[in-house]
């Protein structure tokens, strides 16, 4: 297996003079700054010659002091090696423009759209540079730039202008003052077709129509708009509109101290708050150069696995109910089981959902007394119940009819589309961050990466149920092996990492969760980028739903276990 320095020397010999800066952080992390003219060629070289077949996302950074914008492309590999290479390109701040990677990696699409709407970085050759998360009125304000002054409050009723038109109808709109327009706070409207126009352009004949599923719908809780262009019962094309609950968490975290940032990671996805905590704290730990004590590592593993169990139980139960499993309603039973798991988590962290538990260099508190016995009891129950669920759905004819062979994704497709987490593993790709990155106590623990060959909706649920069993096994090992000792590394009271940057990934219940944190030496992060797992999976809905029956939309989309809150952030 190559190491990061091998990749660097291969790059340097293939592109002499184009690698402007480089840093080998560890055997599996490489940072390079490259000439932006060569970006496409370098990415192609890495993909075709060095096995970097996994495009994992990109982030924009506004370096206002240097009058530059940076785009960081994160590339990894599904099976060839476990190196992550972070490729940086720099572009002048007044007219930022970099080549788009969409021609090489299909899934670069959303990441680049997001960087465009937030920073105003143009991506040359991007097929559809339209806003993704922001509303149309914010496009052009480039809110993630450091000199963004905040958007004037246009929601107040006081400034509403009432107008009566010729037919006697009254309409209201919120006007902008001239000063706001002059001061440049209000962007000039950038011309692009609206979402509605874009989807209607695809209607070809009388028999076709657009059906709206959402923003409230029976696929997952959490608002998003899924419009499908149907001809009869077949879906010809699907359109996704997200951003209904965009909270701007990345920007909020830039305005809070490092410690305060932890609470915002909780609120990105309440089913995975521990792994979000973990990913953020892990990244900051890399910046600070600390490792948590061994006992804390074990506690973090236990909490993360418990959180995975409860997330999978809720996700599966909810999905099976929405699917209309006729013979029984697993949701009720899974919720009862989940209750015990949540209570267990609560006994460690003190909160049921938003844990705020992981700290830089440790955890908030030690395990409570009698935790091991209680945990063993609950784990035994979870194992028995999960086996029972597996039996039940194996025998349920309605379930099998609706799930078997529905929404099959081939391994190659799954990789090309950039799926992650259980949906990816259901397509015969055992790719798991707990294996890829040796974080926490995972290297000392014995576990299998669950995968399935079939790639259909049923396989995706199976992977989750088996992962519950695997997590139970991990927790039992942790309870046996956990050493005594401190749970918090000594850190200065004021957390001020050296200027630098770090990228840290964990395995969220939904897949690869990465945090890219940039420090400028102050007590607040300069930039936080969340590479969420469901963001990657969500993007694949549009190609996956093409050509399926309308009735299967719930089975396919629901089996991905969605979390819109984390997509919108």
């Amino acid at each position, binding site marked *: 297996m190559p190491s990061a320095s091998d990749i660097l020397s291969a790059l340097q010999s293939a592109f002499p003079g184009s690698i402007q800066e480089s840093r080998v952080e560890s055997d599996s992390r490489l940072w390079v700054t490259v000439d932006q003219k060569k970006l496409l060629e370098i990415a192609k070289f890495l993909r075709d010659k060095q096995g970097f077949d996994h495009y994992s996302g990109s982030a924009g950074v506004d370096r206002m002091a240097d009058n530059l914008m940076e785009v960081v492309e994160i590339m990894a590999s599904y099976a060839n090696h476990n190196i992550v290479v972070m490729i940086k390109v720099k572009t002048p701040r007044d007219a930022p423009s970099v080549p788009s990677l969409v021609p090489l990696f299909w899934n670069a699409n959303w990441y680049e759209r997001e960087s465009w709407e937030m920073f105003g970085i143009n991506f040359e050759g991007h097929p559809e540079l339209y806003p993704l998360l922001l509303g149309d009125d914010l496009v052009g304000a480039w809110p993630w730039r450091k000199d963004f002054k905040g958007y004037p409050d246009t929601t107040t009723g006081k400034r509403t202008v009432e107008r009566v038109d010729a037919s006697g109808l009254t309409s209201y709109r919120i006007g902008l003052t001239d000063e706001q327009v002059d001061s440049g706070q209000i962007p000039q409207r950038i011309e692009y077709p609206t979402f509605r126009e874009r989807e209607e352009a695809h209607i070809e004949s009388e028999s076709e129509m657009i059906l709206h599923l959402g923003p409230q719908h029976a696929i997952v809780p959490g608002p998003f708009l899924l419009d499908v262009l149907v001809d009869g019962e077949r879906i010809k094309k699907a359109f996704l509109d997200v951003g209904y609950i965009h909270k701007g968490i990345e920007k909020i975290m830039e305005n809070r101290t490092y410690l305060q940032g932890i609470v915002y990671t909780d609120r990105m996805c309440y089913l995975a708050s521990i792994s979000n905590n973990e990913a953020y704290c892990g990244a900051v730990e890399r910046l600070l150069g600390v490792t948590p004590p061994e006992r804390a590592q074990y506690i973090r593993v236990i909490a993360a696995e418990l959180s995975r169990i409860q997330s999978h139980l809720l996700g599966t139960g909810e999905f099976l109910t929405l699917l209309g499993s006729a013979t029984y309603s697993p949701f009720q039973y899974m919720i*009862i089981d989940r209750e015990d798991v949540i209570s267990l988590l609560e006994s460690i962290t003190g909160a049921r959902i938003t844990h705020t538990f992981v700290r830089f260099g440790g955890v908030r508190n030690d395990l409570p007394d009698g935790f091991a016995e209680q945990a063993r009891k609950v784990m035994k129950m979870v194992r028995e119940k999960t086996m029972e669920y597996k039996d039940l759905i194996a025998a349920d004819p309605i379930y099998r009819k609706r799930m078997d062979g529905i929404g099959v994704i081939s391994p190659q497709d799954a990789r090309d589309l950039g799926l992650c987490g259980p949906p990816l593993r259901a397509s015969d790709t055992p790719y798991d961050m707990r294996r890829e990155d040796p974080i926490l106590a995972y290297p000392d623990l014995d576990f299998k990466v669950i995968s399935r060959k079939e790639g259909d909706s049923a396989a995706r649920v199976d992977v989750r149920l088996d992962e519950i069993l695997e997590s139970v096994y991990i927790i039992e090992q942790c309870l046996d092996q956990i050493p005594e000792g401190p749970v918090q590394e000594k850190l200065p009271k004021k957390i001020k990492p050296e200027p630098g940057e770090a990228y840290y990934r964990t395995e969220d219940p939904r897949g690869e969760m990465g945090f890219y944190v940039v420090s400028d030496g102050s007590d607040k992060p300069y930039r936080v980028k969340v590479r969420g797992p469901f963001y990657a999976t969500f993007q694949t809905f549009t190609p996956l739903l093409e050509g399926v029956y309308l009735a299967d939309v719930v089975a396919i989309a629901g089996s991905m276990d969605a979390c819109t809150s984390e997509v919108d952030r």
Partner: protein
Amino acid sequence: MVLNILKGYKMTFKTAFKDVEVTRTFPEFMMELPANERGIHELDATVCIGCGSCARICPNNCIEMVPFKYGNPLKNKKMVFPSIDFGRCMFCGLCVDECPVSCLKMGKNVVMAGWLRDDLILGPDKISVKRHTPQEVAALEEEARRLAAEKKKAAAAKAKAGDKKPAGAKKKKEEAGGES
């Protein structure tokens, strides 16, 4: 097929005759909360030094330092204590971790319904679980005054011994004493 569907009811039957706790009639029956529970804050007003660390760390800015009579004037010179707006608090516990003298804790009480928004702002009189009685406060104040007077005397003695410089300091001390 029918048999299979019937098999699906296995779980239903099994659970139907078992005593499974699914819903509780709150507030008659409160679930058991663990010792670590992060509920409504509890303040030990006899220990709080009024440093305001909790107010500074709070990500939601929900702590305000307000005056309160039943603390310890020896430790808490300004006699200000945290008042928490539970309409904004998200129970993250950062304030508790930050307190240098560990006088702020989070308890098991999680019930806080009210009719008005202001009902959710709980001042030190509501969240303090330990406080001094008026007599104790009076005694402590007496003590504080005595200490201040002693200090003043010491300062005056020093001023006499030394040059004119500490005179300003002495004056300042006098003012401070007058305030408390």
